[in-house]
């Protein structure tokens, strides 16, 4: 159906998409996980309520989350140039992806941590646990299943965003779909990229759920 050149291009596109997705997820969590923890801890029901910190962070998260990703891509070009050195290609796409993903990840982490039974937190406090111990061993430990489900959702969402970045020369499968499928009317290539994206999402989703189920001790 396709010649070798196109096949190699599709393979490279898949590789780039995976690279962008996984790198953005990783950096997204490096930023988003602490943000989510701070949100959960400083909330008025949290272990160390702090209205000021909560409101400021909450506001930042909401602002970034309301900017459409395509606009964000263009908005952060100066920052991307400063960090990566250029504004196009896979590595350059990671910058806006991380910025878009971090607040989204922060929200998911916040909601996962808030699911942890208040009684268990109280028990840890009654044992003399420090806030740090409670965060690491109780909140993150008890919420691990929910956090892993969050990672799975984040990977899927970031994968979708990364394809969008193709519109502005982002690289990866989205880029191929737009360049060949849209500008050159090569519908078969576009469909092929969609098939690959669907398969990727399915595999990642399956692995994520499998892992979170394996790690969940709350079921018999």
């Amino acid at each position, binding site marked *: 159906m396709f010649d070798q050149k196109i096949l190699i291009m599709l393979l490279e596109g898949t590789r780039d998409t995976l690279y962008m997705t996984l790198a953005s997820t990783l950096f997204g969590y490096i930023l988003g996980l602490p943000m989510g923890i701070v949100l959960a801890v400083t909330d008025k029901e949290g272990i160390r309520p702090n209205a000021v910190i909560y409101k400021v962070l909450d506001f930042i998260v909401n602002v970034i989350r309301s900017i459409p990703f395509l606009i964000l891509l263009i908005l952060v070009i100066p920052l991307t140039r400063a960090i990566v050195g250029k504004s196009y290609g896979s590595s350059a796409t990671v910058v806006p992806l991380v910025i878009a993903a971090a607040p989204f990840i922060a929200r998911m982490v916040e909601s996962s941590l808030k699911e942890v039974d208040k009684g268990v937190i109280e028990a840890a406090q*009654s*044992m003399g646990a420090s806030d740090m111990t409670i965060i690491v061993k109780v909140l993150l430990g008890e919420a691990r299943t929910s956090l892993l489900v969050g990672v799975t959702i984040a990977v899927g969402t970031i994968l979708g965003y990364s394809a969008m970045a193709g519109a502005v020369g982002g690289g990866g499968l989205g880029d191929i779909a737009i360049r060949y499928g849209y500008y050159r009317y090569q519908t078969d290539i576009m469909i092929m990229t969609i098939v690959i994206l669907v398969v990727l999402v399915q595999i990642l989703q399956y692995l994520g759920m499998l892992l979170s189920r394996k790690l969940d001790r709350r079921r018999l």
Partner: protein
Amino acid sequence: MLRPDTFYMRGNTLMNTMIRVEHLSKTFSQKDLTVEALKDVSFEIGQGDIYGIIGLSGAGKSTLVRCLNFLERPTGGTVTVAGKNLADLSTKELRAARQNIGMIFQHFNLLMQRTVLDNIMFPMEISGVPKDKAKKRAMELLETVGLTEKAKAYPVQLSGGQKQRVAIARVLANNPQVLLCDEATSALDPQTTRSILRLLRQINQEYGITIVVITHEMAVVQEICSRVAIIDHGVMVENGSVEEIFKAPKTEAAKRLIFGGIRQVPRMGSRHCVRIVFSEQSSYEPVIGNMVLEFKTPVNILYAATRNVSGKAKGEMVLQLSENEETAQKMIEYLKNRRLSVEELENYVNEEELEEDV
């Protein structure tokens, strides 16, 4: 090690005070709404005591127990545990003090993602006990609570009673001097409740741990407590030995809690209902039979039961006496002369709330 620094007299024994609460109050405020959960509560708990705090739901007992380890900070008054005024402690010192004040809960509050063994090791992770030592200690504790074979199980695989046993093993890990039990048996069936209470008593005797039992069930207090405080609408209305309070409750709240056990009494027209309590010695003489023979007037037995109060068998009976005022008074006199505790139940008739509260 923390040491109690004060003493008080109980009967002829000199007791060390483990917990002293003075003029404790706690007010919750939310915008325009303020709730006084505790009002000027003062009491002392001796070292090695099993002390019951009983009240209906909403009375403030859960808030009170949380003030004993500062999970709730009081708005007034002082709490001194093992010689330390908790309000004077820094955050770090308070955490160290809490390792000496264990707590178990109605819903057990185990870490669901950890094995039984890891749950018991958790407080030792907090206090910095080396892992191999912690594991050895955890295994010993599992033996104490009789769950050795469940070491590798997860909490979801355990029954309620087993979960509470794990929670008890966990709380013992750091050798606390005080154990707070917040409705620890309220989620358990009567049989499991008894086995958990037995375990608590065994711990109290073996390790000399002072135990504070928060409950809404008089039966729990009767089963293991030596002393009891009754709390009603944030006020401690009565406290003393369980025996005294069971025999002659003074306050309305105490009567409600104790007579709450008397359910099956039909509402009668007579005003002369009395509740009498027999101790072991007085059960030898057929008091009621002799009284009927002497006055040649029958009495109606409305309720009778034996209860185990602090390990002693107590007979409890509600009698409807003669309609004749004079005879009734004489009968009461007669019973009192037989050294029985007699209580007139004026409110007994039309006491509908009694049945609702049970």
